[in-house]
């Protein structure tokens, strides 16, 4: 019995020392994480996450003070990348419920004031004074800044329309197979 106690104690002690040594020897210096996270974020500085711009959000994410689902314009892709980067488990199917959106200018209401295109962080709105403005859908991140500044409520966010090119099968539901 003493042999057993002795050998287990020895084993535990040796492994503990080894782990302690490894923790010191292999410690990561500094935190390159913030910059890596910032590279993932859209960079439109829209502030929808509640942090001062994407850099602030990256800092908060790195400190695990914010959820990886904080960025509405980033959509599911950004959530997936952030989760992978931070090693967080996230249920992507729930994130999917927020459908990707895009800005739209209602031509009847637009007075051509140019405020929205001055506010747009990605230059996604085209227009000139006294001309109706239009949105480049491909460049729009749906940050919503144009919606805030529009004096006539002519800009709004709509779900990205599905086309024959962008459509794909939705995830099958297995009602019967709950196991």
């Amino acid at each position, binding site marked *: 019995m003493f042999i057993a106690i002795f050998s287990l104690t020895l084993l535990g002690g040796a492994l503990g020392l080894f782990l302690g040594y490894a923790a010191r020897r292999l410690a990561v210096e500094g935190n390159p994480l913030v910059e890596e996270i910032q590279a993932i*974020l*859209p*960079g*439109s*500085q829209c502030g929808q996450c509640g942090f001062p711009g994407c850099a602030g959000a990256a800092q908060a994410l790195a400190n695990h003070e914010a959820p990886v689902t904080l960025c509405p314009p*980033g*959509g*599911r*892709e*950004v959530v*997936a*990348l952030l989760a992978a980067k931070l090693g967080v488990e996230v*249920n*992507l*199917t729930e994130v999917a419920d927020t459908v*990707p959106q895009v800005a739209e200018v209602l031509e009847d209401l637009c007075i051509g004031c140019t405020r929205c295109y001055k506010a747009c*962080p*990605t*230059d*996604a709105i085209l227009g000139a004074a006294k001309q109706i403005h239009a949105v480049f859908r*491909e*460049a*729009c*991140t749906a940050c919503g800044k144009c919606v805030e500044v529009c004096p006539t409520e002519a800009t709004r966010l709509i779900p990205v329309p*599905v*086309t*024959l090119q*962008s*459509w*794909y*099968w*939705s*995830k*099958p539901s*297995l*009602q*019967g*197979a*709950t*196991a």
Partner: protein
Amino acid sequence: MNPLSRFFSGLRARGGVHPDGRKGLSAEPPIRILPMPERLYVPLQQHVGACARLSVLVGDKLLKGQLIGASGGNISAPVHAPTSGRVVAIGEFPSPHPSGLPGATVTIEPDGDDRCIEAVVPNDPFDLSPEEIATRVGAAGIVGLGGATFPSAVKLKLSRKSGISTLIVNGGECEPYLTCDDRLMRERASGIVEGIRLIAYAAGAREMLVGIEDNKPEAIAAMRLAAAGSEVQIKVVPAMYPMGWDKQMIQVLTGREVPAEGRSAEIGVLVHNVATAWAVYQAIRFGRPLVSRVVTVSGAAVVAPGNLEVPIGALAADLIAASGGLLTQPQRLVLGGPMMGTQLPHLNVPMVKGSSGLLALTGKEIGLPQPAPCIRCSNCVRACPVGLLPLEMAAHIRAADLSAAVGFGLKDCIGCGSCSYVCPAHIPLVHFFNYARGELAAQEKGKLRTEATRKLADSREERMQRIAREREEAARQRAARKAAADAAKKAAAMEAARLAATENQEELV
């Protein structure tokens, strides 16, 4: 095919299933011509690649074979008028697509004359250069009629560039129910053989092999007769699904395997469908563009199943009406074969170049099973012709772990549906895979978009900073100038004061 050789060529085939063929329903009656419908709805996107560019206006009079949509890019195909008549509308119309979303469509009202456009054709098509044949095939709007609808001319030019040795013509038709290729081979074998020779000439292939499944003895006999004395060889392959998968056919006939990230042209093989060979023959010999095709109308809900030659743009309802109508309300309408076809929401959907079959299936034929838990029986593993692990892939996709599914070979999946077909738990495996592939593509696109918008945001940020900097700079310069001017003024004032002072002194002195 004797049992022994069947066994050996079966060894070369991988995976596969043996669904109930049900080809007898439609295989016997000869091909009939569909009476010209009242309206034709011709979609501009009937092929893989860029959409055709509209080249007619509402009200235009058209002749059969006249261009209505020009090729829209390097990988694209033109669309032609299926009959003579008038363009009555251009707009969105339901497209034969699983989404049920509408697509750009030209609506034509036939005038009943079916007058053709004039075509210049050589007496001997082999006088044409191979490049010219490829160009004409492209101009005729020919795409892969086996269902892939890849523009044929692109394949021909690519094959010529990579230098192929073997042309394989796919007469597999492994989908249950479908008999359009079977009937075509039985009735129009000599035209197909000439089409094959033309394709081989255009692509520079010396060897010509036609692979036909052993469940079509009449087609084999007809093709053998037509090919007698030519270099075209008719090869019999065992009937199994998916024998019509081009890479499966290549492996069975030549023993060569196409690299996963390569094309069949890289191992010196070009594959075309028999119906495509027929279309090439029509285009080169008679200058007729691809404006019609043979469609199998079948299923237990159809009164008189058979094969119809239909103009592109005819509605599914027209085909059903010409087949005697429906016996019962079908449980499911399917465009294409039951293994890979798409469900149609209703009968007001036009036939396109890739439509090989129109099936009205009863509940008994499809079965509507409830999915059950996977028992890991691995029937799907044995059925997969690619060598994937469908059960593992589906489990990971269900758990939203798409990258793990990619690790199991998701991107190599050909979507043949063999796994779903055999699954005793009725798990919609191939649905999972197509969902995951769509999701991955969307994510990839989203990533690129995020990158692009970030660049836009960064450059705007930089621009704003530059403008601010320049403004500041300008302000500073203005300030400096003002300061300099002030200083000068001050100095001048002091100088004046000093001068005045000395003057005073002098006065004092």
